[in-house]
């Protein structure tokens, strides 16, 4: 048994299967950042930091001795708690195939959104810098009229090419704009979505949590998500009515090549 303490929960194997299946079926929809950046790991719960391969010079311990300290990026642990009705778990034992797990669904949405926000905008409290904070390029205005969005996306792709950053490129875009893009047809009836894909040479990704959008290279080696423990469900406690569980992960994120992304800022 590991620290998740799943064996202590009053949940049968089929109950755990139902909970895990619900989570694995919904998470990929929300986990937009993982569709665009490199993923390293999972390295396990005890993986505490990402090696940066750099040093910081510090005072030596005694005369004539110089010293330097290895620099590392500590992983951040994130967790969202939720409750599961024991009546629903009993019904799983009776054979129901569609248990009602509303708090799990909300916890999944929340933790995935936190991951996306960290990757694209960083999380200062954890010392993690996101893509929009790290990029070396000025943000490019994105017109709120989505039919003019190809202009901004094309400028972003051109900026990356001018910087010597090869494609294919992907676009992470906020849900509101994504929906308006897939609803839109340009002059001549061509889908705006297809036009943008041709400009990018890669996907448009529906990204809850992002502000505006980001165009980034998908060639690899530019953005690293370092996973300690990948998304896992653990046990907290229970009473006669509900079991309290949590979904958790540990990770760090760093931008290796600041030239490889351009932020798109929505015009006000």
């Amino acid at each position, binding site marked *: *048994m*590991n*620290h*998740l303490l*799943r064996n202590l929960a009053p949940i049968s194997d089929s109950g755990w299967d139902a909970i*895990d299946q619900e*989570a*694995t079926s919904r*998470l*990929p929809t929300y*986990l937009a950042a*993982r*569709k*665009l*950046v*490199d*993923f390293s*790991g*999972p390295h*396990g*719960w*005890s993986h505490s930091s990402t090696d940066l391969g750099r040093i910081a010079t510090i005072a030596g311990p005694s005369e004539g001795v110089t010293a330097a300290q290895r620099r590392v990026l500590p992983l951040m642990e994130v967790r969202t708690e939720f409750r599961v009705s024991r009546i629903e778990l009993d019904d799983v034992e009776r054979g129901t195939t569609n248990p009602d797990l509303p708090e799990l669904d909300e916890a999944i949405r929340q933790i995935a959104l936190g991951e996306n926000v960290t990757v694209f905008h960083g999380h200062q409290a954890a010392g993690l810098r996101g893509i929009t904070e790290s990029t070396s390029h000025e943000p490019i205005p994105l017109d709120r009229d989505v039919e003019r969005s190809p202009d901004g996306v094309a400028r972003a792709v051109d900026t990356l090419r001018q910087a010597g950053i090869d494609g294919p490129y*992907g676009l992470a875009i906020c849900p509101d704009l994504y929906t308006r893009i897939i609803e839109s047809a340009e002059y001549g009836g061509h889908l705006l979505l297809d036009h943008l894909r041709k400009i990018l040479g*890669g*996907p*448009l*990704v529906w990204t809850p949590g992002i502000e505006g959008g980001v165009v980034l290279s*998908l060639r690899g080696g530019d953005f690293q998500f370092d*996973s300690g*423990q*990948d*998304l*896992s*469900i*653990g046990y907290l406690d229970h009473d006669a009515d509900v079991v309290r569980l949590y979904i958790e992960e540990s990770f760090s994120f760093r931008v290796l090549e600041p030239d490889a992304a351009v932020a798109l800022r929505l015009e006000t």
Partner: protein
Amino acid sequence: MASEGLHEPLELLNEATVDHHRAMTSLCEELEAIDWYDQRVRATSDESLAAVLAYNRDDEKEHAAMALEWLRRRDSALDANLRKFLFTSGPITEIGDEVSDDASDPVTDQSGSLGIGSLKGRA
């Protein structure tokens, strides 16, 4: 058709499962190639040909390792077992017994993981 090796109708499989199948099929092909090259190396009496075949055989080992690593990153149970058995030195069956008798290694134990891993390319 993605592959002749699919055992279930394609319409019942999701994209991730088909990609898994592609990777596993590639891994099998690489391992088979290693075996075939190895037999040819042993069989030929021409030393220069044996050297070429041995070079090609070892190249396939790199390909097999790459395919295996792709699978490991997406399969938490495979990841846990590779971490359990690879790069150890004792008798292999005893390593397995030690680990299973001694519960799981908290350092590498991925049980409870939802096995999401990388989603790059799944947009």
